[in-house]
C-alpha cells in the first residue's frame, strides 16, 4: 500500500516537474535561463526518480 502510494506520488511529481520544465523552456528567449532551469529541473527529477523516499 505504502509502496503503491509512493509510486503514484512519484508519477505526479514527475508530471508536475515536466510541466514546469516545459514552461521554463518556452517562457523565455534567454538560453542561459533555459540552461539554469534545465539544471535545477534535472536535479529535482533526479531526486524524484533516483532518491530515497
Amino acid at each position, binding site marked *: 500500500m505504502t509502496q503503491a502510494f509512493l509510486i503514484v506520488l512519484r508519477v505526479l511529481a514527475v508530471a508536475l516537474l515536466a510541466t514546469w520544465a516545459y514552461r521554463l523552456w518556452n517562457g523565455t528567449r534567454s538560453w542561459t535561463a533555459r540552461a*539554469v532551469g534545465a539544471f535545477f*529541473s534535472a536535479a529535482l527529477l533526479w531526486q524524484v526518480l533516483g*532518491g530515497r523516499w
Partner: protein
Amino acid sequence: MRAFRCLVWLEFRRSGVWAAALLGSLAFWAWGLFQVRAVDVAQQLGIRLLLLGIAGAIGALVLALMVGRLRGDTRAGLFQMLLMTPPTGYVHVGTRYAFAAATAALYYMGLGGLAWWTLRLSGLPLDAGTVAQLALGLPFYALGVSVIPLLAWTLLLVTFQSAYRVSGTGWIPGTVMALGTPFALRWLVNGIERVAYALPGWPVLGSVGADLIEAAQGIAEDPAVSVSLEHPALVLPQEPLWIMLALAVVLLLAAGRIWQEVEA
C-alpha cells in the same frame, strides 16, 4: 568606469539605508555581548559565540534580501529603466554585487572584532597573529565560503526570475531553483568533503586554538557526542574557499548573461 561609478551611486541610493542599518546593528550586538552575565566563564564564552553566530546568520539574510529586491524594483519601474541603459548586464550585476560584498566585508570584519573582544573578556591570551586572524582572516574565510556564494545565488535567482517577467511565470523558476538548490548543494558538499585537506590546511587562532582543541577533545570523550578529530579542529581546509569562490564567479557570470539576453 563612469557607468560603474554612476551605478554604484544608484546602488548607494537604493541600498544605503539597508547597509547603514546592518552596520549599525553591530552596536546592538556589542551591547548584547556585554550584557551576558553568566557566572561560569566557559558559559559566558559559549553564549557570546552563539550570539555572534546569530549575528552572522542574520547579517547573511539581510544582505541576501538587500541584493534580491529586484521584484520591488520591477514594480517601481527601476528594473525596466535599468534594462534600457547603456551599461552591460555584467556591469549591472557586478555593481549590485560589489556594493553588497563590500557591506558584507565591513560587517563581518566588525563581527571578527567583536569575537576578538569576546575572547579578551573571557581572559584568553591572544597574540598579534591571532588578533589579525580574528579580525581579518576568519571573517574573510567565512565570507568566501558562505556569504559570497549566497549573494551570487540570490542575484542569479532574481535575474533568472526576471527572464520570465514577460511570460508572467516568475514563480515557476523561483520555485524550481529554490527546491533544486538543496539537492545540488548536497552534491557540492559531498564533492568538497572528498577533496578537503588535499592541499595544506590553514592553522588558525594560534594559542587560542590549543585551548579550544583541548575542549573539543573533552567533548569527544563523551560517548553521546561524536566529534571527528582526524584533523585538528582549527586547521581550516582551503579547498572549500576556492571552490565556493569559483562557484560564485560562475553564478555571477550566469546572472550577467541572463541580464544581457533579457535586455536584448
